[in-house]
């Protein structure tokens, strides 16, 4: 369980533009262990979706990964920096080691291919020995895991309901038995009941198959239930990283506190809910120093000059000057 799966070190993603570049992810570092669920939470524009595409090297121009390492530890003990691989070398890792579930299930399935064919092509590409028949049987198993009838494999995506599409995407991600699945808000497009159902299934499958998950969402309360570790992102940086329990019971960063207080508590009585005043920063003109300082109630004088680094504070890692003096 404590085996390291993925080390992310100083990952920086920039969006290039005529007038200069925008850092959507800056110096992001974390370590993911096998079978662990890491939740990444943040407001829109915090760089969390960019992080997902960067982890899978799927970012589209004008986004580029300009710095950092992405060290993947294979089950046979090999370590490889995914960022240095060629597209061709990377293909061997894609899906069989590293799968992805994207935000909008509606747009993720090829509208002109039957659902089953979209399983078949990935299954047979990664295991050329598989016959068409075997591939379809495997696809049936996979969709059954998420509660979809095998007859649905003959359907085209537009014939499926939103929830079904979302679940079939999860089934698709499991196709090649990956060690890591990254998920970008996989449940935003479905209603709350369906959301619960999908997450329960996901946890169950994760328990059974033991893959690790990086789960990105704006919904912190969801992560508190789901994740082992939670990273809070703000303005393209991780501002706090810790276990779900710690983030919930003892958040350190003012932003984490604000974020936690803006959701109703999971258990216990309802206390006052507070929002965070102000709006997320415009990354084209980021605030100097700590990106959160214009909205921060506990700001110090140095906050607009110095970018705080992520360092251990108690059981969490926090990037905030409040804790710099007394580590």
């Amino acid at each position, binding site marked *: 369980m404590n085996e390291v799966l993925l080390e992310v070190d100083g990952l920086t993603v920039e969006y290039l*533009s005529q007038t200069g570049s925008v850092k959507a992810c800056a110096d992001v570092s974390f370590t993911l262990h096998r079978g662990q669920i890491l939740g990444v939470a943040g407001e829109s524009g915090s760089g969390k979706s960019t992080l997902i595409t960067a982890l899978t090297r799927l970012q589209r*121009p004008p986004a580029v990964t300009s710095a950092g390492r992405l060290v993947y530890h294979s089950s046979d003990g090999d370590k490889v920096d995914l960022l240095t691989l060629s597209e061709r070398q990377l293909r061997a890792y894609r899906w069989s080691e590293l799968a992805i579930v994207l935000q909008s299930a509606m747009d993720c399935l090829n509208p002109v291919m039957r659902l089953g064919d979209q399983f078949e092509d990935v299954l047979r590409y990664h295991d050329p020995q598989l016959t068409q028949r075997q591939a379809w049987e495997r696809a049936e198993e996979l969709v059954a895991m998420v509660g979809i009838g095998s007859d649905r494999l003959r359907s085209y995506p537009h014939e499926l309901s939103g929830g079904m599409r979302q679940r079939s995407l999860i089934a698709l991600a499991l196709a090649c038995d990956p060690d890591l699945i990254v998920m970008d808000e996989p449940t935003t497009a479905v209603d709350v009941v369906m959301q619960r159902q999908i997450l329960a299934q996901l946890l169950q499958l994760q328990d059974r198959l033991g893959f690790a998950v990086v789960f990105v969402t704006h919904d912190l309360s969801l992560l508190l239930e789901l994740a082992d570790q939670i990273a809070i992102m703000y303005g393209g940086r991780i501002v706090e990283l810790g276990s779900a329990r710690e983030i919930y019971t003892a958040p350190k960063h003012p932003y984490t506190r604000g974020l936690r207080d803006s959701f109703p508590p999971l258990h216990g009585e309802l206390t006052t809910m507070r929002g965070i005043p102000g709006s997320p920063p415009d990354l084209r003109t980021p605030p100097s120093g700590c990106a959160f300082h214009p909205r921060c109630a506990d700001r110090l004088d140095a906050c607009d000059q110095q970018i705080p680094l992520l360092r251990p504070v108690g059981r969490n890692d926090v990037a905030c000057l409040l804790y710099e003096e007394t580590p």
Partner: protein
Amino acid sequence: MLNGFLRNSKVRIGLGVFAAFLLLALLGPWFVSAVMHTTPRTIDYDALGQPPSAKHLLGTTLPGSDVLAQVIVGARGSVFVGITSAVLATVIAALVGVPSGFLGGRLDHGLTAFTNLFLTLPSFALTLIIAGYVQGAAWWVIALIIAAFEWPGGARTLRSQTMSLRGRDFTVAMRMLGESKTRLVFAEVMPHMTGIVSAMFLRACVAGVFAEAALSFLGIGTTGSVSWGTIISEAQGQSAILNGLWWWFVPPGLCIALLGTATALVNFGIDEISNPRLSAANRKLMKRFRRAARTAEPEVAR
């Protein structure tokens, strides 16, 4: 908004070329008589079917007329027919498309069916037939015939645009305030469509020039006046090919192609503005970044 258009280099070049041709059409005949001291029909008996020379920059035709003078004067014949047909086609398109999209209902059904009908008819063949019946008509009749079969595409675009504008908040708000429909259309809907209408107009212009050239080439275009099409037609009729007088039929065709390219450029520019993904700018940025990364690499000691 206009500034945004003009900042796109494709739009700028396209409009520039277009304006140049317009100028040529307006001032060409004057230029030929006042500066070149000739007319497209003046015959130089010393130079029958001569290749380009200092005296005749684009050579002469077999009967001894100056090709350059013909091409310049022909610009007027071609461009005028193009513009007239484009104006007419745009007006018809607006008259059919806008009410159809704005009022909806049974009127919309009728007008849409009417438009679709014209859209599927092979317009060129139909133009040809009618022009064939009225052989030797004045240039504006030709323009009218061309326009009669050129409007449906535009009407369809305008209809869908009007429909989307009708649903926007500001028009809904104006309607609530009890503005009359006519006023709404002219004051609120039309101004929002200037971009589309002008693109449409340009495209119709070139289509008109093309159609006129094709008709003239077949010898059923305008009679008497000179246009790019008639020049090519005369060249073909008088065996310019057989005699190898390429300078006779190449320039007018190139002019048509140039005008067509200009319009296409404007349209691509507009497409790029409305859909930034089409632009090649992103790639350029990526390339610049990669080059920078390569040169910076030695400094990043491993």
